[in-house]
């Protein structure tokens, strides 16, 4: 039993206990608090499974925002569930039991946890790991395939894995591209033979630092998010934008009634006030760091945006919502929400206008496509970050707002 499995088991035990408690506790307020605990534990499970970015998002979104949203709803509704005679619903229990049994029966065909031979670890993985936006070479513009690439063989390639090594720890095998294994492409997708740094060196004065992007960004999650699944991420951002718009439509009071209402700030508590004043610049800076640092380490637009929103929410909690509206008026907030989506699609359109394909970031820096990738990803992450932070703030504002009678 390895360390990861041991910790996984213990954590999942805690998670399951919390889940049962969330469902069975009658007090909705306690249920909301336990939701926060649940999210933190779940984020630990994901750190244990090496999924840093997901854990980051879960901690910020699940532990922070959704708990605050649930509590914001409890302000308008009842704190307690209605007491009932029958606590356990036998019919539902039977149904879920049957459904769960069927699913568990299905898991017997699943590959073992962490099995290196599982199909998911083979199909297209080397290509995804090695920068996935087409074939990035040091040449800008419409990318030619690397040497040794056989287009007709690629078109007839059905994606099947030729041979799986007997030794599961054979990492060299996974490093080799599947295309290379089939003789479609030379096995050098990963290391770029001629990267821009080499061309600049001869000028003498322009030595690229060793942490420069040699054709790919270090965090492959961000790379996949912004490039391989760029369209998808763009429309996920649009989904979030739509959620913000629906919240405004569902809950915002008519403009003539005004934004500012009475509030109950906690500013008379000296310790809280001082600590918050110290903390807010730090949180904002950290949020920007998370967005900007997204392609180097764990983090990115979604996570950083939520952190920035958390700073504003903390401000509203301590100093009251009217103070927040003086800092960030709702019209500005609404405008920024749209601006983020515009920034994302605008980056794509810029690539289009520069002669590449939509969201082909390498067009942004024709001298060094790798740096262009990094620039494009940063712009896109900022777009996502602005939208996410402003939508989260809008949601909080609308839920906290008093309703017109």
């Amino acid at each position, binding site marked *: 039993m390895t360390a990861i499995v041991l910790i996984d088991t213990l954590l999942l035990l805690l998670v399951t206990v919390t889940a049962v408690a969330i469902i069975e506790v009658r007090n909705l307020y306690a249920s909301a*608090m336990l939701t*926060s605990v649940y999210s933190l534990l779940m984020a630990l499970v994901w750190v244990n499974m090496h999924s840093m970015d997901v854990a980051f998002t879960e901690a910020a979104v699940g532990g922070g925002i959704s708990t605050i949203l649930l509590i914001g709803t409890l*302000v308008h509704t009842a704190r307690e569930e209605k007491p009932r005679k029958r606590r356990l619903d036998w019919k539902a229990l039977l149904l879920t039991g049957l459904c769960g049994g069927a699913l568990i029966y299905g898991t017997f065909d699943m590959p073992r946890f962490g099995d290196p031979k599982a199909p998911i670890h083979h199909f297209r993985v080397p290509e995804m790991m090695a920068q996935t936006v087409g074939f990035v070479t040091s040449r800008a513009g419409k990318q030619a395939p690397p040497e040794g690439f056989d287009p007709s063989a690629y078109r007839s390639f059905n994606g099947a894995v030729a041979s799986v090594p007997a030794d599961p720890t054979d990492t060299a095998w996974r490093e080799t591209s599947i295309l290379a294994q089939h003789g479609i492409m030379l096995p050098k997708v990963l290391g770029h033979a001629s990267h821009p740094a080499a061309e600049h060196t001869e000028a003498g004065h322009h030595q690229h630092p060793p942490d420069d992007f040699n054709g790919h960004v270090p965090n492959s999650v961000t790379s996949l998010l912004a490039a391989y699944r760029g369209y998808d991420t763009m429309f996920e951002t649009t989904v979030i934008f739509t959620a913000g718009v629906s919240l405004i439509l569902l809950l915002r009071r008519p403009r003539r009634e005004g934004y500012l209402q009475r509030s109950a700030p906690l500013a008379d508590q000296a310790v809280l006030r001082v600590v918050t004043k110290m903390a807010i610049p730090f949180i904002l800076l950290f949020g920007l760091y998370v967005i900007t640092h997204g392609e180097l380490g764990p983090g990115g637009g979604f996570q950083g945006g939520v952190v920035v929103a958390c700073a504003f929410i903390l401000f509203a909690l301590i100093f009251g919502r009217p103070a927040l509206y003086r800092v960030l008026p709702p019209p500005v907030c609404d405008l920024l929400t749209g601006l983020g989506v515009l920034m994302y699609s605008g980056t794509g359109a810029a690539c289009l206008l520069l002669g590449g394909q939509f969201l082909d970031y390498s067009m942004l820096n024709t001298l060094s496509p790798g740096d262009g990738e990094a620039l494009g990803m940063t712009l896109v992450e900022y777009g996502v970050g602005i939208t996410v932070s402003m939508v989260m703030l809008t949601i909080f504002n609308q839920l906290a707002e008093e309703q017109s009678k």
Partner: protein
Amino acid sequence: MSWVYLATAVVLLVGMFMILIRAIAGPTVYDRILATNALGTKTIVFVTLLGYISGRPEFIDMAIIYALVSFITTIAILKFAQMGRLD
């Protein structure tokens, strides 16, 4: 050295289990808030340790975000307990 981290992690998990029982049992709201907050602190230590267990300790940004989020959540829960509203 890794067994030291692992042992620490398991001990922390046992502690988290005790705190979780307190968070579920209550009895007052403030007990729950206290337990949630304590669990947050344990989580921060735990996430740092996990980095050492997996041999890549450079992702401590995680711990910072946990600290911030757990603080903000505690304030929000508390404000609702005290004022009955969030703004």
